[in-house]
């Protein structure tokens, strides 16, 4: 077991790659009551075109299958795993994103038992025709719930404006029609391909003894008969760099319209340090443009174009990347025009050194705040690791970003040609 010290943060991270390829990370947080653990596979909603384990021909699977599989992992021959976690005083959950499926629990007692339950249930699939059919009703209602949610519709509307082919544009849960096609055999095929330990990360954070935890995990894994698996072949159609469309309106029964603008990243193929630096740079620039202490924010708020819901974010993972800016507004057209103009104004002017230093401080402070949360650490660390970055490099990277780094990013990312607008507007009766 190796360990790495992060002196300034007063944290020590323990890690090891096991015989079967599973990567294990443990962070001791002695002051906390709670232990939080995530078991995550590098497999999400975008991985819908791949060569199944042991086959030669690629397959395309129904939309929403990674999420469906996540739901079905909890059901076993002798009942559902939630019951076992609850018996052991742990609350369990799972989530599926574009690139990952994570299973997790948090608990304040019986950590070893709960950790064993987590590992064992994720490594022991049990699907039948009957249980698969039953789940279609439940997930159908989950999809309907999101259909009625204007924020979710605006978010996916914006992404779907950007992408011609990339499956990031497909709703993570799929549609009622697409999930109707899913069979138990499909689920096993996806499971066998993507849930091999060498494609997964286990992260434990809490008042634990790292050595003891690592031994437990190693013994557990050594007792299971995993064969080495070749690298997974995933396929993505060639994606043009320009957005698919410049503007889309989603009609919904809302009282307050929503408006987001976004910029599609031209070459989202970074990994490691380059990705970390790029992602933090775009987020820093967004904060300099639209943070609450900026002139732009003041102007937008004074003119009544935005309210408390106004937000911005940049996210990139191998294959896709986009920024988004917006929120609730009474005048979606004026807001999108104003935001576009503000971005173009910002990138055409030199950076203010004073603003840069203030914003850098602000971002470092927010990162420290995020580290109060064991959930944030485990989930983000895993995301970073799959993208070959280290979460604990965030502060030094923020400190190293230079003006000229930012100028490059400004010209590149916030190119007008990459922009698109999505508005949710009141449906006419």
């Amino acid at each position, binding site marked *: 077991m190796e360990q790495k010290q992060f002196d300034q943060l007063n944290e020590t991270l323990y890690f090891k790659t096991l015989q079967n390829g599973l990567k294990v990370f443990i962070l001791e947080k002695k002051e906390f009551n709670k232990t939080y653990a995530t078991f995550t596979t590098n497999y999400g909603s975008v991985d819908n075109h791949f060569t199944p384990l042991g086959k030669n021909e690629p397959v395309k699977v129904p939309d929403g299958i990674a999420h469906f599989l996540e739901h079905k992992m909890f059901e076993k021959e002798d009942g559902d795993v939630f019951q076992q976690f609850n018996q052991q005083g742990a609350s369990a959950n799972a989530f599926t994103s574009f690139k990952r499926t994570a299973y997790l629990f948090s608990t*304040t007692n019986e950590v070893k038992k709960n950790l064993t339950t987590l590992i064992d249930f994720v490594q022991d699939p049990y699907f039948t025709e009957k249980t698969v059919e039953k789940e279609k009703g439940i997930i159908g*209602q*989950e999809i309907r719930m999101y259909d009625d949610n204007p924020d979710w519709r605006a978010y996916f509307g914006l992404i779907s404006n950007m992408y011609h082919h990339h499956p990031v544009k497909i709703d993570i849960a799929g549609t009622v029609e697409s999930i109707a096609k899913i069979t138990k055999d499909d689920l096993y095929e996806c499971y066998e391909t993507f849930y091999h330990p060498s494609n997964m990360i286990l992260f434990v954070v809490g008042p634990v003894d790292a050595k003891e935890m690592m031994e437990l995990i190693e013994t557990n894994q050594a007792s299971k008969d995993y064969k080495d698996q070749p690298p997974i072949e995933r396929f993505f159609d060639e994606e043009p760099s320009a957005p698919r469309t410049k503007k889309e309106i989603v009609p919904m029964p809302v009282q307050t319209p929503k408006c987001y603008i976004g910029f599609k990243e031209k070459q989202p193929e970074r990994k490691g340090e380059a990705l970390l630096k790029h992602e933090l740079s775009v987020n820093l620039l967004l904060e300099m443009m639209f943070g*609450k202490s900026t002139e732009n924010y003041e102007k937008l708020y004074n003119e009544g174009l935005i309210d408390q*819901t106004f937000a911005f974010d940049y996210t990139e993972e191998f294959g896709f990347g986009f920024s988004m800016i917006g929120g609730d507004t009474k005048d979606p057209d004026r807001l999108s025009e104003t935001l576009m103009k503000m971005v173009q104004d910002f990138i055409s002017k030199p950076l203010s050194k004073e603003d840069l230093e203030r914003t850098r401080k602000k971002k470092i402070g927010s990162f420290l705040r995020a580290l109060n949360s064991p959930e944030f650490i485990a989930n983000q660390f895993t995301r970073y690791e799959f993208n070959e970055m280290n979460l604990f490099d965030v502060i030094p990277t923020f400190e190293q970003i230079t003006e000229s780094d930012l100028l490059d990013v400004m010209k590149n990312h916030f190119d007008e040609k990459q922009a698109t607008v999505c508005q949710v507007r009141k449906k006419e009766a």
Partner: protein
Amino acid sequence: MAYVQHRMTEIPGMRIHSVETKKYKTNTIVLQLKNLIKEDSVTKRALLPYVMQSGTKKYPSSKQLRGALDDLYGATLNVDLSKKGNYQIISFRMDIANEKFLSDQSKLLDQGIALLADVLLRPVTENGAFKEDIVSKEKRSLKQQIESIYDDKMRYANKRLIEEMFKGDPYHLNVYGNENKVDQITPQDLYAYYQEVLANDEFDFYVVGDISHDEIVNKAKQFFVFNEKRAAGQSIEKNEAVEVTKVNEVIEEQDVQQGKLHMGLRTYTTYADPDYLALQVCNGIFGGFSHSKLFINVREKHSLAYYAASRFESHKGSIFVMSGIETANYEKTVSIIKEQLEDMRNGNITDDEMAKTKAMIKNQILETVDDAAGLVEVLYHQIISGYERSIEEWINGIDRVTKDEVVEVAKKIKLDTIYFLKGRGNENGTKTV
């Protein structure tokens, strides 16, 4: 060692609470303002904190104030409104980096406390009132915030349930106030109301982090100096026991994909009551967790919903049930939910359900106090109810609850109101399963 090192000192006009811990990389400051929720003040009270955080004498605009926060390594300042029992609580929350983790070692916490004291005591004014332009901006923003509840159907259905269930009780009021009352508020009215708040509200000031209680008390004394004589602590508002004669069923229709079923029940038990912990267990078995009767029966057995849960409002003594379903399954779902409660009244509670629920509640409370904001919420229950229950008493008390006690509290529970927001047209009338 106790789970939480909570200490409290009264200084003139305010209670100072501290929790010393090295858990976090930041220090958390919360200022709570407590007063009754009332028809004639609810909207002004909702507007007030947003105006207060928009400028102080030292930093007279929101931009300048936010700039000052950014300079403190991105300290956050948030305003929050909540309804706890019959009170409308205003919260100011600040979160500020612990300089120990920074290469720059300036005294961030002191500056943060000074800034918050300015927000409370030295807001920017003109002609003896709040600034006209700030008030009008915040009025617009508040109106939009109230309107947006309609767009989030879960929140909307919950709001409608409470309006129906608590007609004639101030609890029916929305914590963000009344949309139609926003326009008429003038900067002078609001400033007069602010003076009332300074004179009559109860103030509780919490600091959680790597701090010392005595130092915090000294700082607070230095920065929070109240001019006038502030009213002594208010008496605790008792809930009136309302009898239910008939279940009130309200069905409304909108253009939605999923119907929202919300049900309100009266328990006749609140935080300070001896059977409070039995009620916690009762609600847990009913709908609090993924092993609960609602989840198992509505979701797992009948595939009717993605979520089916209940939550307990500790100070009003109400249980609220919520589930998202196909419109066509309304009656079936309601009858399954009623059966679950009936089952509990008849003593159909297994040892397994008791054990799981107790384990989960104990876990929940210990997890909540791991989060600084959650910890303050837990401690603030004492102020709202006037009853002190330590974390240890919670844990041990939950362990001692018996099945008979759970059945007894279940017997007291009365279904009061069913609210259903249903979808329109045929597309929602067909079942997917």
